[in-house]
């Protein structure tokens, strides 16, 4: 879509507002270089700090994972090569925990995506006067410290002090004798519900940013053409915010995969609800097995890297696109 504006000394071609002549381009690229330099200068210190607090510990963990090393017996530290990894990968506990972690990740992200979308649409469409209030209200759970919300949910469902059994005893299966934290399914339900309640605001905020990028005239045009609300949603809104959706899913998936607080507080891994972060914690911090714990942490890290890789390469998540750089 290009327009020619006649009548000037030289016709200027406007290409969606991004066209420019060569001289301007050359000048700007000089400026762009300076900007890039400034960018590095500004981000440099943070970058160095990031290297110090992330890269160094990761390398240290990789190194430690090759040793049989217990913190209370530092003199008995011995190089064991990859045998820590062999123990972990042949142990049913690791695979069980991996399965539980993936189950929690998939369910929470799926539920949160649907709920988050609904909330984002509500926030997007709300009349201006309500918008601020609504956003704040929706964000409240996200502002609560996870440990605190985990305790709140735990005590709500607890068989001795909880009120859920009392309030919902009309639901089949729920009675005052139901101990939510005594079986796998019910424990996991509370853990996931708490997680969803807590982090849906995060996903809805990301989606709200995506919604704001959908051009209003496209929607209007579709409306004029007689598209139903559902058609506008699936054909106009969703395709135009695919990047935002994928980024939201990726961020939440990475976050959910590292779930710790809720499980730690509510069951501490009882009834086979242990997740990988808890296993790493118990091994390194509980048993002070630095070698074995590091190996678990490294494997956990590799899982996270794999999720990123799959998302970015296979699903082509475009991190730049979500920021509106394209």
């Amino acid at each position: 879509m290009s327009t020619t504006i006649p009548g000037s000394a030289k016709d200027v071609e406007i290409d969606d507002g991004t066209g420019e002549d060569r001289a301007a381009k050359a000048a700007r690229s000089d400026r762009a270089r300076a900007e890039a330099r400034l960018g590095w200068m500004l981000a440099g210190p943070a970058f160095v700090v990031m290297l110090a607090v992330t890269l160094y510990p990761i390398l240290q963990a990789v190194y430690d994972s090759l040793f049989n090393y217990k913190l209370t017996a530092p003199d008995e530290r011995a190089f064991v090569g990859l045998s820590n990894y062999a123990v972990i990968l042949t142990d049913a506990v690791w695979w069980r925990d991996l399965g539980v972690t993936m189950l929690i990740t998939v369910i929470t992200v799926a539920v949160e995506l649907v709920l988050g979308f609904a909330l984002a649409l509500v926030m997007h469409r709300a009349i201006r006067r309500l918008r601020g209030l609504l956003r704040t209200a929706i964000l409240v759970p996200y502002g609560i410290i996870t440990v605190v919300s985990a305790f709140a949910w735990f005590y709500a469902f607890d068989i001795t002090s909880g009120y859920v059994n009392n309030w919902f005893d009309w639901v089949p299966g729920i009675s005052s004798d139901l101990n939510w934290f005594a079986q796998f399914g019910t424990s996991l339900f509370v853990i996931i519900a708490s997680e969803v309640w807590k982090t849906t605001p995060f996903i809805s905020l990301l989606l709200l940013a995506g919604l704001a990028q959908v051009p209003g005239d496209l929607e209007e045009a579709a409306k004029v053409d007689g598209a139903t609300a559902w058609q506008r949603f699936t054909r106009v809104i969703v395709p135009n915010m695919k990047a935002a959706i994928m980024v939201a899913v990726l961020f939440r998936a990475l976050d959910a995969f590292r779930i710790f607080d809720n499980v730690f507080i509510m069951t501490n891994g009882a009834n086979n609800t242990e997740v990988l972060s808890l296993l790493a914690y118990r091994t390194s911090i509980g048993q002070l097995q630095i070698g074995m714990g590091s190996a678990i942490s490294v494997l956990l890290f590799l899982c996270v890297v794999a999720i990123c890789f799959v998302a970015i390469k296979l699903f082509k998540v475009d991190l730049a696109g979500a920021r509106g750089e394209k």
Partner: protein
Amino acid sequence: MRRRTRPLAVLAVLGVAAPLAACATGEGGTPELTWYINPDAGGQATIAAACSDESGGAYRIVTELLPRDAASQREQLARRLAAKDSSIDLMSLDPVFIAEFAEAEFLAPVPDDVAEATTEDVVQGAIDGSTWKDELVAVPFWANTQLLWYRTSVAEAAGLDMSQPVSWEQIMEAASSQDKLLAVQGAKAESLTVWINALVEGGGGHVVENPEAPAEDIELGLESDAGREAAQIMGEIGTSGLGGPGLPSENESASLELFQGDDASFMVNWPFVWSSTQDAVESGALDQAVLDDIGWALYPQTVEGEDARPPYGGISLGVGAFGEHTELAYEAAECIVSPENQAAYFVTDGNPPASTEAYEDPEVQETFPMADLIRDSLEQAAPRPKTPFYNEVSTGLQQTWYPPSDVDPQTTPERSTDYITAVLRGERLL
């Protein structure tokens, strides 16, 4: 450009260095001893202040609070001590990780005169709990044991004579005949190990046969009559529903709540339940009738006719090996554990003294009518395995003896032995 970067660099350096510098504050004058205490009702802080005053300016004790449960206390202390933290002068240690700390040389050796003075007239359980490889490595402070608490009305209705020692079998029968629930700790936590250990010891066995052996040579004593008897009792309480639906998540405070309710019959628990129940009555949350209905007896026998071995707990004082004032710290420890302080601490915080002398205190006798029983129970109590690998053993037991309804005398002892042995050899994850 260079000009612009300088403030940034300064900021970055400040950001990294400022928190580090904050650690290095120091002041002259009275040496400050830091005492890491477990949470209580404020009694340890009071003792710290009293001993500081008493020292006449020789030292000043400040307290630092540790996390609530023993496992987290151990984690925090072990991590700090592994990094040779010199700020730890005194610490309140749960007896179960004293062996581990002693073996790792985290504890400063106890001077002979202190050892002698602080073990005089002290219950044997507390001395054993503070000893590693025949040497006193910590100073006994207070000693804890579980009693059998019962509702007199239920015991009477069931026709159980509570003046004689009773067995698990008997209280299970009594509770089920009255259609009531037993309050025991079935949550997957340290309290489960406490229960298992008391059952096994009561049957004449030991969870660990050779607790001083290196990890790969440790032998478990679960595949024995005692181990099977323990599994039998726990499994029956789990499967029969005698523990109630809350059993798999029941810790000490949940047990107390159950015991204060309408379904209560018998409960095994620490003496804190007495002061808690009294407080509940005073605040109006509980009927006086409930308090009047409560009776107490020695921990139930695993095998009828054979002495029970009640659980042993408590706190000993350790002195950090890396502190700058170890001598002063032992001086302070001696002051802290004086029988007078122990008696006062019992009265204010409900934690029973390790010193037998403290039980003679009239105020103790008045506040705790069961004080003599507690002392007797302490003499009979059996500690949990004193091994540097206690954490592995305890967590291994919790993994394999949980939930109580899955405990089976035919399979559980064998399964847990195989599992814990493999963990200790580094062949399995815990």
